[in-house]
């Protein structure tokens, strides 16, 4: 998030598949192996947190 160039690239992705591919490729460039399943899980958890925003806590 501190890297505005990286933010520009990531926010420009128009589909989830495009974003996942970008993240995996950018991660690999930085020595990180990221699996699609991991990204799918994050996306699911984020969606769920938003949908459940009115639930306590």
């Amino acid at each position, binding site marked *: *998030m*501190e890297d505005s160039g990286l933010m520009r690239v990531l926010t420009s992705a128009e589909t989830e598949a*495009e*974003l*996942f591919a970008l993240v995996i490729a950018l991660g690999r460039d930085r020595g990180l192996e990221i699996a699609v399943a991991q990204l799918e899980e994050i996306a699911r958890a984020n969606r769920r947190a938003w949908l459940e925003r009115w639930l306590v806590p």
Partner: protein
Amino acid sequence: MKRDGWVPIRLVWNGCGVRDGEAFVDWCWLGGERFTDPFFDGTIEMAQRRPFNRLFTHRTRIAELGSWYVASPGMAPAGFIFHMSRCGSTLVSQMLAALPENVVISEAGPLDRLARAESIPEAARAEWLRWMVSALGQKRSGLETRYFIKFDSPTVLALPSIRRAFPSVPWIFLYRNPEEVLISHLREPAPAMSPGFVADFRAIDAPMDEVVSMRPEEYAARVIGRICECAAQGMDECGMLVNYTQLPEAVWGNIARRFGVGFSPDEIARMRTVALHDAKRPRQRFQADGESKRLEASDAARAALARWISPHFDELERFRNAAGIP
């Protein structure tokens, strides 16, 4: 951390929230997008559908809000809008949101929830409220010069705390013929008008088993009455009462004067255009429905209204008339 373009979208806490680290904020990337939907959630819902946010919405400790407050203080609010619900408050916020010079936050969940969080000690809550208001009031396009916040209707129960946190911010309370408001809620109840649905506020001081067995007319009337009562009790030198019948002209008249802002003839023309449409369904033309609502009122609704709302509504009208504001 750099937070340009990010907004807090949810507040989460465990325990009483006294110590930093027990409260958390979820952040969503909005970029330069303005808040133009009738409600905060509408704008965020669209943002949440972007691929980026599906992955990069994230949670931080609430201290991150404090850091952002120091690093990038948002605009100072020009005015707060409280309301009885179903009384034209969305019309007011949509008229204001029509101008790119205005930042209008309409019923932002994390802000309302924080304001109503009685379990958080007053001093911490006041500080967090200032952080949250600052984070939501960031300039996005650079054109913004005015900042308005419309709270969810039950948040007027927290008016004294909000006033202590923002003692110099002017505020209004919007209200309407209570028969029309009550019938609107009986047709389509807002969450706050359904027992137990909004878990963070209690408008009615009664055991839950009694509350859930109440007739819908009584429950809604008691909540609406309590909202009006809190507005009347909280009236002070910064507050102003506005009846639905004064809209839309009051937006560029009394309300603008109370908030210390002015609008050009062109801006007024743009706001007038908004008033021609249904505020919550902007693609539809506005159609007055007050008479049909009043005709629909049952005897039970009228009785509940007379008992639980009318005394407070009458008091609001007395205050407004005494203030001599047309």
